[in-house]
């Protein structure tokens, strides 16, 4: 698969992630969708790294994966805290504040 194919794959993952964030109500699925956006960016970086024949993109991807894990850990921690207060993992449960 050439660069354009990989970039297309990244674009699809990105769109899927944005779609999930906007349409899903379950917080865990929203978190998964955000991770899909990260994955789309990661695929792009690897594809462009191959295109330019330098390692910068791959280094970026390694950091991306690590930070995404940290992000997921904090997100799940917040979810547990919210669940204890509201007994629901639904985004709609978080509507006490006016937003």
């Amino acid at each position, binding site marked *: 698969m050439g660069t354009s194919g990989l970039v297309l794959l990244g674009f699809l993952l990105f*769109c899927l992630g*944005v779609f999930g964030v906007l*349409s899903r109500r379950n917080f865990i699925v929203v978190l998964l969708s955000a991770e899909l956006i990260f994955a789309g960016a990661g695929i792009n970086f690897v594809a462009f790294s191959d295109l330019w024949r330098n390692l910068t993109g791959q280094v970026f991807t*390694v950091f991306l*994966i690590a930070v995404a894990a*940290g992000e997921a*850990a904090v997100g799940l*921690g917040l979810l547990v805290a919210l669940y204890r207060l509201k007994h629901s993992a639904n985004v709609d449960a978080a509507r006490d504040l006016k937003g």
Partner: protein
Amino acid sequence: MMAYLPIGIFLGIALAIVPLTLLIGALLRPRRFDYVKLQPYECGIEMRESPRGNVSVHFFLVAVVFLVFDVETIFLFPWAVAFDRLGLFGVVEVFVFLALLVAAYLYAWLKGALRWEE
């Protein structure tokens, strides 16, 4: 200003996709529910209990700790591949990294995140 045009088209398509797919789904899908249809399907075996049973919160803590430490090892692989060329600086750097990980591990341990029984 013409440089913005493709972005505009791109944005327009991206914005249109979500409402469009939701709309098509809402228009096309039939809405005939009955008791059997609303039951969860699981290979023909009848359901015995709610699939959304509670999982102990211990699993959550262990899972998060595992997730973070597991993924952090990703930084060790590039170092392992290139450590002969990185020399002393690479060794020092990786040990600083490991020291930070050990500190985090120590914290989790002291806080009792790894203790399974209360």
